């Protein structure tokens, strides 16, 4: 058995049995990265020396009976917009091309405390404005069993869906955002990718929890008491989330619906009429927040600085003009417009009002219905994800607008390209989403 193809849970058993060492495992993953990264460009930074050292420490702990967690010694990739102390964290931007953080993100602290081995930093669209596809590609192409990424408007779930792995966006606040490079703060969420639902749960068990450094963080229990009584639960497939969905995506969703019905769950009708406001609300709010968050990159404190300038104003303008890419500048400009005196009432205030309406409708719906089933992407699989904010996918944005947990599940191939099904539930019901996914796919081994 090729160990790079095993799930983290299976690898943990191998480590516990003594049939495999963490050094052997990390060495195999590093070799896989060396073989494959030229094709996928999944990793910006590979932490070869550091990961082998950490793996050696994990093996010594295990030999001494001091195992830190079930995932002690398991490698994980971390998206390059999540701070890692002493390891370059660029957000895939020229603006931070040489930035080495002096601290770890809260989620990274937890990974290290649990003994996981950070094998490298994965590529992404600049400041995660578009996709986390390379983290998903790293997991899909067996370069790592686990990946930590971020989901603002669905990038993590979409990438997972299109790469044929599981991608989970937790309830907003369930994982501390401390050390996650801010894009749209009211929607940014640290999320996880893996090749099995069980691995997703194991990783969430480690990174969940409130944090004094993130005032929006909350404590959520992933384990719900007792076995879930599916016969008392219900689900729905709202039409609004199937706009533009291809035949295969629809049939995959219907297959999932049939499995839920077989568990005893009741199918209900659901209309989410407020979602007609969602694309405009998402674009305006996320751009406004990005414009504000990215104001800190001015060439003074850290990061890229233009070599040509005359005076402080020109330093700012040239640095930001040269340091940011086209998509980022687009969002800053649109966000600046949204927050301007001329447009804040017409755009920003209205977008927040629309968001409140969307959230209220989803909250009400999810007080009656336990799970919403949809394609991960409403657009047909295989369409290039441009990263342009106007290509925002309607199926992806309800969860960030309302702070809901959502899981993308691999649902086979569509025209030869992986496609995903998404399960969404109410805030704090992360455990239910994972329970249902485990139940649906408990007989299917992770890829």
């Amino acid at each position: 058995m090729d160990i790079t193809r095993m799930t983290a849970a299976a690898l943990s058993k191998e480590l516990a049995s003594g049939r495999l060492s963490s050094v052997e495992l990390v060495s195999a993953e590093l070799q896989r990265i060396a073989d494959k990264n030229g094709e996928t460009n999944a990793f910006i930074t590979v932490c070869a020396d550091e990961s082998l050292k950490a793996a050696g420490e994990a093996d010594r702990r295990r030999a001494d009976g001091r195992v830190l967690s079930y995932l002690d010694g398991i490698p994980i990739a971390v998206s390059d917009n999540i701070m890692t102390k002493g390891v370059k964290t660029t957000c895939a931007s020229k603006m931070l091309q040489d930035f080495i953080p002096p601290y770890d993100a809260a989620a990274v602290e937890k990974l290290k405390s649990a003994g996981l081995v950070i094998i490298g930093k994965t590529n992404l669209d600049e400041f995660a404005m578009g996709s986390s596809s390379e983290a998903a590609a790293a997991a899909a192409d067996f370069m790592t069993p686990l990946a930590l990424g971020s989901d603002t408007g669905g990038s993590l779930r979409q990438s997972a869906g299109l790469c044929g792995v599981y991608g989970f966006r937790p309830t907003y606040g369930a994982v501390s955002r401390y050390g996650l490079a801010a894009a749209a703060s009211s929607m940014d969420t640290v999320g996880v990718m893996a090749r099995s639902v069980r691995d997703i749960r194991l990783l969430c068990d480690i990174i969940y929890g409130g944090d004094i450094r993130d005032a929006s963080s909350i404590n959520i229990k992933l384990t719900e008491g007792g076995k879930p009584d599916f016969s008392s639960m219900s689900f729905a497939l709202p039409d609004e989330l199937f706009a533009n969905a291809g035949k295969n995506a629809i049939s995959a969703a219907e297959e999932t619906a049939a499995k839920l019905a077989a568990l005893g769950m009741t199918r209900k009708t659901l209309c989410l009429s407020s979602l007609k406001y969602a694309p405009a609300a998402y674009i305006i709010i996320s751009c406004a927040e990005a414009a504000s968050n990215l104001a800190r990159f001015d060439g003074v404190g850290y990061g890229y600085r233009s070599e040509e300038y005359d005076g402080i104003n020109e330093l700012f303008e040239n640095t930001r003009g040269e340091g940011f890419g086209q998509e980022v500048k687009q969002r800053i400009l649109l966000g600046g417009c949204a927050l301007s005196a001329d447009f804040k009432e017409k755009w920003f205030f209205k977008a927040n009002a629309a968001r409140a309406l969307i959230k209220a409708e989803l909250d009400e719906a999810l007080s009656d219905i336990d799970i919403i089933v949809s394609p991960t992407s409403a657009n047909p699989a295989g369409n290039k994800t441009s990263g342009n904010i106007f290509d925002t996918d309607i199926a992806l944005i309800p969860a960030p607008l309302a702070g809901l947990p959502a899981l993308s599940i691999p649902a086979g191939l569509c025209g030869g390209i992986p496609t995903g099904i998404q399960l969404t539930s109410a805030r704090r019901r992360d455990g239910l989403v994972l329970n249902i996914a485990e139940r649906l796919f408990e007989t299917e081994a992770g890829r």
Partner: protein
Amino acid sequence: MQMDIKKIARSLRIRLSDAEIAEFEKDFARLDELSGIFADLPSYISNIPENPDSFSGAALRPDEPNDGQTMGRDELLANAPKLSKDKTMAAVPRTV
């Protein structure tokens, strides 16, 4: 209403090329058109509060259970980073 992209770019301290300005003018027009949907917002919700809070979309509602472990204002203040002597920068690493 037309937006002066050059003016906004200046206020956001971003130098743009003429080609970029032309592109962003198109984006602006596209978003202006897209936001026209807000005209349909029901009247009871289009009464915009003075100080809308972006975070209200995701934060806990007053009636949602708090398990007692989520931080309150007092605890946040008690644990807030202390200012360094020059009072210009918190004595903790800056969050990016």
